[in-house]
């Protein structure tokens, strides 16, 4: 009942010959009963990790490394070609309102999910579980608010009682009350035993709700820092984490210098020094250093 990503590297060749560095040597553990939040600026490669876990990388993608979902029946390699989507690992998509089919009611889409997965659940039961009135399921997606549509998407993800739930920006463009409800719902899923990977750029909500157990910070396809969320928020070890947190309104609204890098044809090592030249944790060969249950990226020591 856990998710393990080991040394995942994903490269996406473009028609013009350049290559997108979508993920570079990413290793991440999401144990059962916990939420790990993967954060970073837009365009840093977070969402590609969701695609990789669901084995839905774009055609032509080159990948190395492994992703393992541990279920009550044993370990499962997501790239092995066995059916697992919805059953062992499920995705809560960004912008559920556009993800649902517009010409069918929420109920008919949930029912189809349940039948396909051979799940013993009923759509009413799932609706109640996500805090929706079952009558709302008879609405078409455009009749639902953004928050209700997002809860329908969570209900769909829960239909197969998956061991792993991947939520890709589930709170994008929801207001605060709705954001808190959706995050609370993911917390309940984790408390019921699922391993939840929450991909988001909404740091403010994570700080406010404290919903995440662990935090992984990504910059330009690489992990910069991982650790217990509360500790990383209080005392970031990587300069990038500190910069990212400093941009929050509650922490002074300090803009980062420059723009986030394009992921096309990145050099083979961490590029944070191009953004902030004074950092002493980038600008040469770097490695993640593990200290207790935390890790951070820094220059490799030259022997």
């Amino acid at each position, binding site marked *: 009942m856990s998710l393990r990503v080991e040394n995942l590297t994903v490269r996406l060749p473009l028609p013009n010959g350049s290559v997108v560095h979508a993920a570079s040597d990413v290793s991440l553990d999401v144990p059962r009963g916990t939420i790990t939040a993967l954060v*970073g*600026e*837009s*365009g840093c490669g977070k969402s590609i990790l969701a695609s990789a876990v669901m084995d839905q990388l774009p055609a032509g993608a080159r990948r190395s490394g492994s992703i393992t979902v541990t279920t009550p029946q044993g370990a499962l390699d997501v790239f092995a070609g066995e059916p697992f989507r919805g059953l062992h690992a499920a995705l809560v998509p960004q912008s559920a309102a556009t993800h649902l089919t517009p010409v069918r009611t929420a109920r008919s889409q949930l029912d189809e999910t349940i039948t396909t997965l051979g799940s013993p659940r009923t759509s009413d039961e799932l609706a109640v579980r996500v805090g929706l009135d079952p009558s709302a399921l008879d609405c078409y997606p455009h009749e639902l*608010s*953004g928050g209700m549509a997002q809860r329908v998407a969570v209900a769909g993800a829960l239909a197969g009682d998956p061991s792993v739930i991947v939520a890709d920006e589930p709170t*994008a*463009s*929801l*207001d*605060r*009350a*709705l954001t808190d409800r959706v995050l609370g719902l993911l917390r309940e899923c984790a408390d019921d035993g699922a391993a939840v990977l929450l991909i988001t*750029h*909404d*740091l*403010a909500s994570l700080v406010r709700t404290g919903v995440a157990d662990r935090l992984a910070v990504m910059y330009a396809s690489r992990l910069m820092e991982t650790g217990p969320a509360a500790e990383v928020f209080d005392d970031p070890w990587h300069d990038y984490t500190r*910069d*990212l947190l400093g*941009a*929050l*309104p*509650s922490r*002074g*609204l*300090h*803009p*980062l210098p420059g*723009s*986030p890098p394009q992921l096309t044809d990145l050099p083979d090592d961490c590029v944070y020094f191009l953004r902030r030249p004074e950092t002493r944790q980038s600008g040469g060969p770097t490695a993640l250093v593990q200290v207790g249950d935390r890790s951070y990226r820094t220059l490799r020591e030259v022997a």
Partner: protein
Amino acid sequence: MSLEARGVVAGYRRKPPVLTDVSISVPAGTIVGLSGPSGTGKTTLARVLALLDAPRAGTVTIDDQVATGTRFAVQGDLRGSVAMLFQSPRASTDPRLTLRSIIAQPAEVARRPVDVEGVAARVGLTPDLLTRRPYQVSDGQLQRACLARALAQEPRYLICDEATAMLDAATTATLVRLVEAEVAAQGVGVLLISHDEELLAACCSQVSALADLRRAPVQR
């Protein structure tokens, strides 16, 4: 010197109004915050203030001059005096145009000279980005271009309607600081609409909740 709405009633078509007797004032050279949950009429008020939609009752006043129409029917000396920055930069730009054309378009329509490079530099867009089209830049870069487009009109007032809701924290901080710089340098008055109350508290001189601006209609 301020952008004011007085006793505005507005809504969609024949439905009951979403705004009833709402008044707000945005003084020049300040940032005023407006908060409220989704679906309570923040955008409707923004569109009335930007002279895009006519209110059913009430007036919009720009520097003590009452606006007499909307869009191109606004009297000449008020036309283009309120600019707007929308939530989705993708939905508010023409995908076929380059960023240069997008930024220059409103000024060209008004047959005014425009210094695209200068205004792009003010918002931190590098010259190489000006030849790109929207699909070739990030949301943050495109929203900067939208801000440049708004500033190129040399507006007296700027309305940012959830302009940072789709952006990450780092890009939000950058954009808000740019808007603050324009307020300080050009004396622009800004209405910042957001459901992020922490953000409003961090950069506004005054924050109102939409619900508090509204008075119940008089019962007859």
